[in-house]
């Protein structure tokens, strides 16, 4: 889910009543550089400022408007407008005594002369055409201008994240400049609230009660959810007009006739791509430079963008833009960077009597695990990761992290995997304090294990989960792998082995994977890939030491022994596109030696070298 807080910088300052008259508020970039240097600066805040300057070139030369409230917008204040011009425009719209002509400000003189020149040339000024009538129609008495503080905007968003914790186990901040949205991983949480629509409505109601104005979009991926929440693009590019119609739509929109301005938009699973088609390119989160280039090429909608030939994209678009396109297509996964909890599940042990050996440390950990398990039980949550900081007498800390495949609440199970990690830990000095923090997730729905049996019955999935927890924690999570076939003729790339325990902690996906591993229903799965490939493939093909020029007739050396070739079968030519940097041109032969052993050797057609690649074990 993407939860968008509408016109966020303005909304934040309005909520905090930083403005005297909060309804007519405009936010602008810094006026006094020396004063701004005293403000708290972060890397993200600097990136935000760079983004604003890229979006509004007028902000490079001096203070400029970043965003404006509805009333300020009605008064003619627009994002990107220089602050001086905005001030003068507001001054013009103030009520004047009868008969007094408007004060001829420099900005107005310049604007009117420019407009007059354009009229004489037969052009129209879109900005003045849209802004001027509104300014005349809605006389505004006073507009407050406030300085923009991106760091504080981000901090407040993190505070909003705390309000959403009840609805999603993982809440993160969107990773774009000048964020106005929170990303919530609500996978599997819908049934707890009576469905995803109810979840979203309850969430919106909760935030509305706190005087937040927001909108939510639920979709299969982060990229598509963001796109539907920002149907017109980044909020700085659109302004408050884009959200003005939010009150007219239904509260929840799920059909094909959905209005993007409704508070909740839910895209049915698997239909995101077709729904994306009419949205503008700006909703794809691609960099401004790429958006401009696409506009020049006449590509205005996501449908046109997704229709571009994939091989041509790298030559035209930036890497980030290509990444965004792949994320929209669902070809590239995007993880939510979680915001750390303000009130985490944690426990601490401090003592003046140090734990001097592994057994004592294990006892301390047991004590902390019991405490953490109790907190988890109270909150109806499970731990997916336990992070411990073991502080030594010289104030240095040793990290100890244990992960679980699925959320676990039981202290015994948590302690078991923690002990496995502790076994491999080097503890050179006594430990004086230990802090344990749990990354949490909702517990999976309990399944009835056995209806009639009185004895305790454990399902194969549960057994496998426990053993994978142990293996991943003792050997490392990259050692427990599942097989994924690839559509690639190069033998070493025809399958990939991926860690079963992924970093995304998608509980439902993990459940599916585990179920597939043990399910007898998959026994009829049709095979894919070429038949009769060696079961032992050398990760790096080895150059053959031959007894003559031609190993197919003269034999070769392997394992320190001469292998005399009795017969061979081939060649099987495997080659990839010549224009690739890592192009492959090989002729493979299945060679049987006089001892009956069968090897898979090939000749590299580029270097004419003979190499051994596999053994038919």
């Amino acid at each position, binding site marked *: 889910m993407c939860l968008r807080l509408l016109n966020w910088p303005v909304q934040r300052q309005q909520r905090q009543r930083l403005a005297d008259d909060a309804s007519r508020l405009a936010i602008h970039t810094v006026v006094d550089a020396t004063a701004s240097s005293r403000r708290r600066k972060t890397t993200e805040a600097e990136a935000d400022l760079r983004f604003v300057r890229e979006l509004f070139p007028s902000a490079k030369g001096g203070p400029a408007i970043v965003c404006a409230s509805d009333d300020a917008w009605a008064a003619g204040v627009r994002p990107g407008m220089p602050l001086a011009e905005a001030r003068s425009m507001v001054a013009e719209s103030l009520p004047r005594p009868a008969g007094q002509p408007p004060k001829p400000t420099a900005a107005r003189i310049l604007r009117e002369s420019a407009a007059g020149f354009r009229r004489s040339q037969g052009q129209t000024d879109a900005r003045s055409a849209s802004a001027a009538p509104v300014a005349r129609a809605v006389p505004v008495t006073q507009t407050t201008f406030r300085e923009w503080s991106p760091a504080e905007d981000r901090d407040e968003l993190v505070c909003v994240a705390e309000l959403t914790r009840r609805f999603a186990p993982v809440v993160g901040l969107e990773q774009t400049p000048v964020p106005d949205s929170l990303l919530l991983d609500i996978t599997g949480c819908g049934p707890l609230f009576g469905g995803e629509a109810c979840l979203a409505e309850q969430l919106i109601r909760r935030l509305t009660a706190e005087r937040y104005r927001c909108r939510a979009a639920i979709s299969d991926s982060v990229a598509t959810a963001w796109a539907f929440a920002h149907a017109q693009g980044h909020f700085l590019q659109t302004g408050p007009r884009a959200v003005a119609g939010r009150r007219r739509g239904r509260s929840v929109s799920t059909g094909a006739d959905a209005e993007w301005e409704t508070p909740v938009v839910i895209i049915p699973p698997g239909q995101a791509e077709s729904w994306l088609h009419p949205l503008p390119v700006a909703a794809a989160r691609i960099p401004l430079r790429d958006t401009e280039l696409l506009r020049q090429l006449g590509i205005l909608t996501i449908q046109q963008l997704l229709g571009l030939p994939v091989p041509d994209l790298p030559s035209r678009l930036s890497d980030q833009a290509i990444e965004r396109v792949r994320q929209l297509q669902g070809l590239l996964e995007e993880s939510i960077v979680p915001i750390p909890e303000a009130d985490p599940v944690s426990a601490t042990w401090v003592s003046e009597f140090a734990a001097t050996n592994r057994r004592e440390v294990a006892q301390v950990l047991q004590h902390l695990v019991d405490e953490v398990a109790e907190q988890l039980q109270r909150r109806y949550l499970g731990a997916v990761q336990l992070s411990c900081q073991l502080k030594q007498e010289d104030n240095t800390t*040793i990290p100890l*992290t244990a992960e679980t495949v699925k959320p676990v609440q039981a202290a015994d199970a948590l302690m078991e995997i923690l002990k496995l990690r502790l076994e*491999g830990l*080097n503890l050179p000095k006594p430990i004086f304090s230990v802090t344990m923090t749990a990354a949490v997730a909702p517990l999976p729905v309990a399944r009835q294990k056995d209806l009639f049996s009185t004895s305790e019955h*454990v399902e*194969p999935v549960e*057994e*496998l*989960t*426990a*053993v994978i927890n142990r*293996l991943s924690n*003792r*050997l*490392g999570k*990259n*050692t*427990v*792998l*599942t*097989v994924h*076939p690839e559509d690639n003729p190069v*033998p070493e790339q025809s*399958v990939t*082995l991926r860690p079963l325990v992924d970093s995304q902690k998608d509980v439902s996906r993990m459940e599916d994977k585990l179920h*597939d*591993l*043990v*399910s*007898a229903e*998959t*026994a*009829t*799965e*049709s*095979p*894919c*890939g*070429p*038949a*009769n*490939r*060696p*079961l*032992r493939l*050398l990760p*790096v093909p080895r150059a053959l030491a031959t007894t003559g020029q031609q190993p197919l007739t003269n034999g070769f050396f392997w*394992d320190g022994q001469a292998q005399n070739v009795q*017969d061979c*079968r081939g060649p099987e030519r495997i080659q990839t596109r010549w224009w690739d940097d890592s192009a492959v041109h090989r002729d493979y032969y*299945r060679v*049987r*030696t006089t*001892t*009956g*052993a069968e*090897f898979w050797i090939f000749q590299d057609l580029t270097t004419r070298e003979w190499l051994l690649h596999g*053994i*038919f*074990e």
Partner: protein
Amino acid sequence: MPAASSSSSALDQLRRQLMASQVQHAERTVVSTGLRSLDQLLPQQGLPSGSLVEWISDGPGLRATTLALKCAARFLDRPGALAVVDPWHEFHPTSVGHLGIPLSRLLVVRPEPATDAQQTGGSASVSPRAAAQQSPATSTFRSAASQSHNQRAQTLWAVEQLARCAGVRVLLTWNDRMSATAQRRLQLAVENSGVTVFLIRSSQALRQTSWADLRLHVQSTMADPNVATVASDRKTGQPQLSEERVSGRSRWRLMVRLIRSKNAVQHEGAALLECHDETGDVSEAAELAGAASAATTAG
């Protein structure tokens, strides 16, 4: 009466304690290998679940692993994963699907040696693959010396953990150096869990003590090229000349001998199998298929 009742309750308690102390063996079933000649060779006409089976290969490239995987596929009609502990990081599962094993049922465990970084909570490690690249002078890939003691211990631990897990149906691994104690532990584990462990070993293992329920020796043998073989066509059922003979390719066969079964019973006889050139599938040898069809016709 009170004395009698107290003694009976004590007996009941003792009985309960005795039952609790006994190892509850998992239900054992016999699974056919799908190869008639091999089934006939085995004491129970198939491979028992919850057993330790050694496949001894005379050398590399003799298809012992292919044969073991083909037999493992027959176990997957019941819930449970096929776990492969691959200490050498060379297992390539592309063609496994053609042996009847769904890739979604395959769990590969590749233990890596612990390093200093891993000791301190990091994740960097040196795989055997990288080690092999770093020391190209090492000629033997699977020499025990190239595997560190730590990695051997990790591999053995992983094998034992998986062998104890009822969520695993079959476990396949390669291990030439396994002590009798480790084998005994493994045997007890599989008896308890019902997991079937296939241990692929080289002929060096023949000199070692074995706790395996079955020890099968896979050898390669060349059939007499002068004997014309007739096999029935798969589609039409019409007799035809063996494909190898037609193509002129030498006729190599796999000969599987049962060296030992549980309780050290010695066995005679061998199963003759062949590997299809195109599919890599292991099947009955053509002579046997021809003989069988002839016998059926005569009958």
